[in-house]
């Protein structure tokens, strides 16, 4: 426990209310209370269904009114939840403001606090001792000491891993920035959803919560939607990849061409388009096979709304309807064939029925290309960059507090007659015992003295 973090309690009674409030906001007790309250509120938020307006749990008017006042159906954006978060932010800022001066003082080494102190006497001169000690202590303290003359005594001071001191501010600034990013996101960000058929374009989307319709600053034209499935595993058609090939247009002019895939969104002008879902909305084309009696066969493709001439016959064929397999006849199509001067006839070509005959061809069903509509999710969150900056700060703060160890060490050499009085003192933020042992071992070797004479009560 560092003493810097002890609360300065016992301030006098007559102090102003303002000082008490400041005292409250800079106390970690408030932090713990806020964290627990926020945790409990979040628990409630996972039990009560969020988003649904009516209180399905009970019929009593009191509970429904309570649910309304406390926004129990949208706890995470409720007034009191945001109030708790802003209290936490204020608590964080107050804590930082209180500790920054101490951290700066410690950074500059104005803090002379030590966790151990030894005084020894040696017959060598201060300058001889200085060179000897500097080289011997290099492996532990790295780098050479700063020197200062204090009257006739020489003061050497080492410092290692000052960056440790940045750990605390980084962690707590990171949290503040994340909270700010979150606030920005809830205030100005939005999420929506839009559905566009293949071959069509759209710019309107529906807001997720309020179902309000909004317009994008550009048009999205969906040229093609592809659905890739895992065929190899034979586990049926498990989706492997959805992909929408789109062009973005501003005033009819193409400004971007891209493929939107799951996990690979398209971001344009701060707005992100995400591949969400898809539906089959029609038929793009049907593939049939024309087999001749002598074994030759031809592919025959029909596109809805287009008449297609049946090769080597006077007939023209047109697609009427497609049945994805709702009858025992299996998957298949009804097509209409007519020729000059004869009555149009209706022919059914189904997988589980005998292939029909037309002129010299026997027609069988091969497959069809569905026409999709692609569901795109629109995301806009101005707070996201802040959240990532805050997270980066938070992680670097962890790294500093876990993998560096701020250590300081001083030696005062005062010549007295033909002897030199030595005062050694130092402190280490973490692994205090190891640091003291390593110094004691070096001193033992260099000065030939085994233990320290006076050792301060080691700090915590």
């Amino acid at each position, binding site marked *: 426990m560092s003493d810097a973090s002890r609360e300065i309690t016992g301030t006098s009674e007559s102090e102003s209310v303002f000082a008490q409030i400041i005292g409250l906001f800079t106390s970690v007790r408030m932090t*713990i209370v806020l964290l627990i309250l926020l945790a409990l509120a979040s628990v409630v938020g996972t039990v009560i269904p969020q988003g649904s307006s009516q209180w399905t749990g009970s019929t009593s008017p009191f509970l429904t009114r309570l649910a309304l006042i406390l926004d129990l159906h949208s706890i995470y954006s409720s007034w009191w939840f945001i109030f708790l978060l802003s209290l936490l932010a204020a608590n964080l800022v107050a804590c930082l403001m209180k500790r920054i001066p101490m951290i700066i003082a410690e950074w500059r080494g104005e803090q002379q606090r030590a966790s151990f102190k030894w005084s020894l006497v040696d017959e060598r001169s201060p300058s001889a001792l200085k060179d000897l000690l500097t080289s011997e202590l290099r492996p532990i303290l790295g780098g050479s000491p700063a020197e200062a003359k204090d009257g006739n005594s020489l003061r050497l001071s080492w410092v290692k891993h000052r960056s440790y001191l940045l750990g605390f501010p980084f962690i707590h600034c990171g949290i503040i920035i994340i909270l700010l990013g979150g606030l920005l996101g809830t205030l100005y960000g939005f999420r929506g959803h839009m559905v566009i058929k293949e071959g069509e374009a759209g710019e309107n989307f529906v807001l997720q919560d309020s179902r309000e319709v909004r317009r994008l600053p550009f048009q999205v034209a969906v040229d093609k939607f592809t659905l890739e499935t895992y065929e190899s*595993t034979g586990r049926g058609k498990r989706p492997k990849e959805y992909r929408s090939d789109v062009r973005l247009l501003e005033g009819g002019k193409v400004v971007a061409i891209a493929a939107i895939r799951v996990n690979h969104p398209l971001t344009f002008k701060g707005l992100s388009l995400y591949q969400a879902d898809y539906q089959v909305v029609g038929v793009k084309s049907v593939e049939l096979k024309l087999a001749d009696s002598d074994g030759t066969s031809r592919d025959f493709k029909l596109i809805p709304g287009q008449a297609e001439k049946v090769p080597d016959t006077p007939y023209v064929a047109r697609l009427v309807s497609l049945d994805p397999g709702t009858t025992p006849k299996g998957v298949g199509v009804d097509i209409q064939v007519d020729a000059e001067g004869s009555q149009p006839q209706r022919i059914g070509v189904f997988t589980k029925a005998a292939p029909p005959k037309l002129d010299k061809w026997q027609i069988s069903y091969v497959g069809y290309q569905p026409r999709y509509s692609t569901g795109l999710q*629109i995301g806009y969150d101005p707070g996201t960059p802040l959240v990532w900056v805050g997270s980066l700060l938070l992680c670097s703060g962890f790294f500093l507090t876990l993998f560096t160890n701020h250590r300081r060490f001083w030696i005062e050499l005062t010549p007295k007659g033909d002897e030199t009085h030595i005062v050694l003192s130092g402190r280490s933020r973490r692994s205090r015992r190891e640091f003291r042992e390593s110094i004691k071992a070096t001193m033992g070797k260099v000065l030939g003295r085994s233990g320290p004479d006076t050792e301060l009560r080691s700090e915590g």
Partner: protein
Amino acid sequence: MTNAVLNGWLIFGYLACGVLSLVAIVSTQPGSKMRRGVLGFLIALWVIHTGSIILRWLESHQLGIGHAPLSNLYESLVFFAWALALALIAAWFRFKADILLVVGIPFVFIIMASTSLLNHEIEPLIPALQSNWLIAHVISCFLGYAGFAVSFVAAILLVLATSSESFGQYLPGSRLLDDICYRSILVGYPMLTIGIITGAAWADYAWGSYWSWDPKETWSLITWMVYSAFLHARLARGWSGTRTAYFSIAGFGAVLFTYFGVNYLPGLHSYF
């Protein structure tokens, strides 16, 4: 030899290792050959466990649906057991407390045994899960959970040691248990934080919003808040001993609910 068969053998291995560690602690002195043997056995099992995870990864590639083995409940349980075994081994080298193994290994056994109830077939990855963020998210979360599990074990022992004297004399000093409880949270906490951050990054990347208060996300945040409160109670208010032990136990309760309980709430993350 498929990974599923290997995992089956590992279940018996961990059971045997747990029983041996109990026998060792009761019948031999600290530092005895048998106790060192138990540790060696645990390390060997962990190496095989690592092999089984790698084997599953290779098998998924052979099936043409190659993905990191972290995508369903079976794979995450196997990884959690692996991470917990690793955490116990690391904790032993740091603190030399054999009792941790005696109480910890049965947990690894229970987790591995529970995987035998699940379908261990390798399934293809649905598009939403095809992302490197998934790997970073699941690994950091489970390393965090493993750290909290070790702290939970130490906390339980601490409460036992202080509440009943008769049981206490078997256990290491409460100061050591308190140190284990704190230090394993100090390691687990950054891992959980990174887990939440990578989870948010993945959600932002794949679904367009880094935080949608989905029950699984919310519960990992709740767990994070409990452990944040623990750290502050300890670091800035100087709490220690049974008071922080109860905090650690509460925290681990939140971890278990985040991992198991939340799947019974509607939401994005259900593995079932």
